[in-house]
């Protein structure tokens, strides 16, 4: 089970352990945590919601895409769902490869793809309201379901 969702806090070491191999000299992890301030606005907490069976399938697909591009890579991804407080871990991506450049590149590929194709949504709760954050690039709160044009990648 290298790709899954978790209602409980993610244990980072458990995700790393899934990719440690005798011939993997390099492991990278990406850990997404809940940030307090976004563009001057203070977040109190977040809620992540997922279309769970499809989200797992899409995480598995990302693992398969990485395997195709970096055949020696091993990938594990766990994404949290439910309510998260500031500094809580939302996602952990671990990638092992024999050489370090691949481990960075494959890891970065994974996070970009998560933000494109995995059906998980974040609702930000602020002091003065709440909004589903609606474009996958995390740059624009998106209460109407209609992204503005010209959003750029974070």
């Amino acid at each position: 089970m290298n790709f899954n969702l978790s209602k409980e806090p993610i244990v980072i070491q458990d995700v790393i352990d899934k990719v440690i191999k005798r011939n993997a000299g390099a492991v990278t992890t990406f850990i997404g945590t809940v940030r307090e301030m976004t563009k001057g606005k203070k977040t109190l907490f977040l809620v992540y919601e997922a279309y769970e069976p499809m989200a797992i399938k899409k995480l598995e697909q990302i693992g398969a895409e990485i395997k195709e591009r970096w055949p020696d890579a091993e990938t594990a991804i766990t994404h949290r769902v439910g309510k998260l407080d500031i500094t809580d871990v939302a996602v952990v991506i671990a990638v092992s490869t024999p050489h370090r450049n691949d481990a960075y590149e494959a890891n970065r590929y994974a996070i970009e793809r998560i933000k494109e194709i995995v059906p998980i949504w974040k609702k930000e709760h602020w002091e003065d309201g709440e909004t589903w954050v609606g474009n996958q690039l995390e740059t624009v709160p998106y209460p109407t379901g209609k992204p503005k044009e010209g959003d750029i990648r974070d």
Partner: protein
Amino acid sequence: MIKVLLFAQLRDELGKETISIEANGWSVAELKGKMKAEYQLGGLETVMTAVNEEFADDDTILSDGDTVAFIPPVSGG
């Protein structure tokens, strides 16, 4: 019957997570039109659609028993 799943702002807008619709033989585009006309669901032109947990385009034809999910722009990670 087709089962329709709604998430995030779409679910908040409609006030329910799933609805069932007679839509055998319809395209995804036709289902979207119905959702807009009957439920006043906005922004459907910018959501992705999944049929049976795989992304599908507007031309995809639906069959009884299919599960359709409207996928607003995702924000995981």
